[in-house]
């Protein structure tokens, strides 16, 4: 049985992952801001087979509360075997391009609050001398493009930070994983037209649960996005800038 902390547990992708962990009989601690949804999800995961499920609700934007949230999770789990950070906020591009407070608020949620949590987790991992942390960033962070640059910048900031940690903990029992999903059909993207490239959260959840068992530095989910992003990263500016990507 693993002791698992899920930050942003009401996210569709996190929930799909949590179900697999519940089914495997792990003990879970859930953090998210919507208490009503947390209660329902906790109940569901318990019935699906989780050894124990506890939770706490808070708005992650208030980073000064993070220390206490981590403390609460630790007093329930005692140790962190797995930690998944999943929360995120995708502002509508046409709004965040003009609305500066909103753009910065989204950066705060996607980057600052995430980095804050990561610091606390790493402190605990160092004490334990082991642990696996996975953070959901995005393929969007691989290259700045005209659509939603502030979201991409926040995701890129987290990815670069994770790279640094991977370097620090090279050859230790501490594993840091960057998870980069492509398009996923979740409430975050409810307004988008869906096409062939879209995946269901269950598919992404399977990929995440799997990578915890065999940690890698960075995975794309579904995996074909590795190749799509390879091309996009290598496109020369003068070509990329003529596209609507």
């Amino acid at each position, binding site marked *: 049985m693993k002791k698992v902390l899920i930050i942003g547990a009401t996210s569709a992708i996190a929930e799909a992952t949590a179900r697999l962990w519940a089914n495997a009989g792990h003990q879970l601690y859930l953090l998210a801001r919507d208490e009503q949804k947390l209660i329902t*999800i906790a*109940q569901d995961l318990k019935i*699906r087979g989780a050894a124990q499920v506890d939770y706490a609700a808070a708005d992650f934007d208030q980073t000064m509360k993070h220390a206490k949230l981590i403390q609460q999770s630790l007093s329930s789990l005692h140790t962190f075997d797995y930690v998944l950070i999943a929360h995120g906020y995708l502002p509508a591009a046409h709004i965040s391009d003009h609305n500066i407070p909103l753009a910065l608020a989204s950066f705060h949620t996607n980057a600052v609050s995430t980095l804050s949590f990561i610091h606390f987790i790493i402190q605990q991992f160092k004490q334990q001398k082991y642990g696996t942390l996975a953070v959901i960033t995005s393929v969007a962070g691989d290259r700045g493009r005209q659509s939603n640059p502030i979201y991409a910048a926040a995701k890129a900031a987290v990815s670069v930070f994770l790279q640094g940690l991977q370097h620090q903990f090279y050859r230790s029992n501490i594993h840091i994983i960057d998870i980069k999903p492509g398009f996923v059909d979740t409430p975050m993207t*409810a307004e988008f037209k869906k096409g062939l490239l879209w995946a269901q959260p269950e598919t992404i959840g399977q990929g995440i649960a799997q990578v915890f068992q065999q940690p890698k530095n960075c995975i794309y989910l579904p995996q074909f996005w590795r190749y799509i992003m390879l091309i996009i990263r290598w496109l020369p500016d003068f070509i990329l800038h003529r596209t609507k990507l």
Partner: protein
Amino acid sequence: MVFLSGWGHYPIIAADLSRPAHLASIRQQLNNSASIIGQGHQRSYGDSALAQHMIRMTTFDRLLDFNPKTGVLICEAGISLQQLLAIFVPRGWFLPITPGTSYISMGGAIASDIHGKNHHLKGCFSECLYSFSLMIASGDILECSRTQNAELFYATCGGMGLTGIILTAHIQLKAIQSAWITETQYSAHHLNDLLDLFEAHHQATYSVAWIDTLAQGTQLGRSILMLGEHSAIGSLTLAKKNNRTLPINLPIWVLNRYSISAFNQYYFYQGKTTTQPRQVPYQTFFYPLDTIQHWYRLYGKNGFIQYQFVVPKAAGRTALTHILTTIHQYQQYPFLSVLKAFGPANQNYLSFPMEGYTLALDFKLNNTLLPLLDILDAMVLSYGGRLYLAKDARMSETTFKNSYPEWEKFQRVRHQWQAHTRFNSVQSRRIGL
């Protein structure tokens, strides 16, 4: 705006589809339109789950309470039966009533008051339903059971989503010892033999027959009857199987009378060789088509219609013979044809089953089909029968109102709760509700 259809790919409409994650957003949407309909996994064949504003409930797929001693479960309405079975079969629990596919939602099971291969003994889905919660037109949420808001309960079970949005269900599961089914097959050389077999095996827990609708004359109604019992041996867990998918729509000509005949011959050949009882996993017995995802693509891109009717027992032989011969005369060749015996009807206003026989025929859509189906409607009604709303894409208002005697009661309950000002589907408008 999306293009959407039911399982039969007919009709296709352009409309708004939302997949809310919060109750508040469902409530909000109720103010936006007078043509709203709740939707599950779109396994209904026709237009019952289609409307200008469709609210897909599949995000609401959580388990809320389970008592492992009694098998009483409360869950959200968007969970699929397939998910439920994957969780509960290994723990020794099964759904008391289950249809021919596991990919339907709890909400869809209630809204169509579905029947299974055990209807002759156990009735419709509502028999295992204690209560459900329903968001009505005002946005309020009501708990409905046979004792609380009873009229809404009877209207919603089988009510095709026309009373509100079903949010949660409180149901009874059934204890099993094994995930396996003991299946016995009998071949019948004629419709008369088949109906005799149904009578003789009335006590079998599950029964269903596949009919070769191409056979005529002395072979009319040639069929294989499949009986099933929950097995006492074998484990509760099964090895995972890979689903096979049909990747593209096959050209229309693939389904002509010769290929269908070949399919049926093959099927009969298989059937004839296995009359000894055999052990099969529950999925193989209940959901033979679920292993082939997107099998409807066999019908090509024009789509198809499943014509499912029921005729009262007394009229059974005559009616079925009459209808099968008429189909022959019109040279329409159904691909899959399934016959079942129904037990008595229940109290729900629009539930489909009545004591008698139900036949489901899958027809590829073409120009001559629709006139034939109108003729069949008249025949079915003349024998005192009716058509299943969950499969219907075309019946007329008159046909509906002449064959569902409680439709006015149903409509009165809708008016009482203002449901008619919000919940209207393409189907409900067509049949005059």
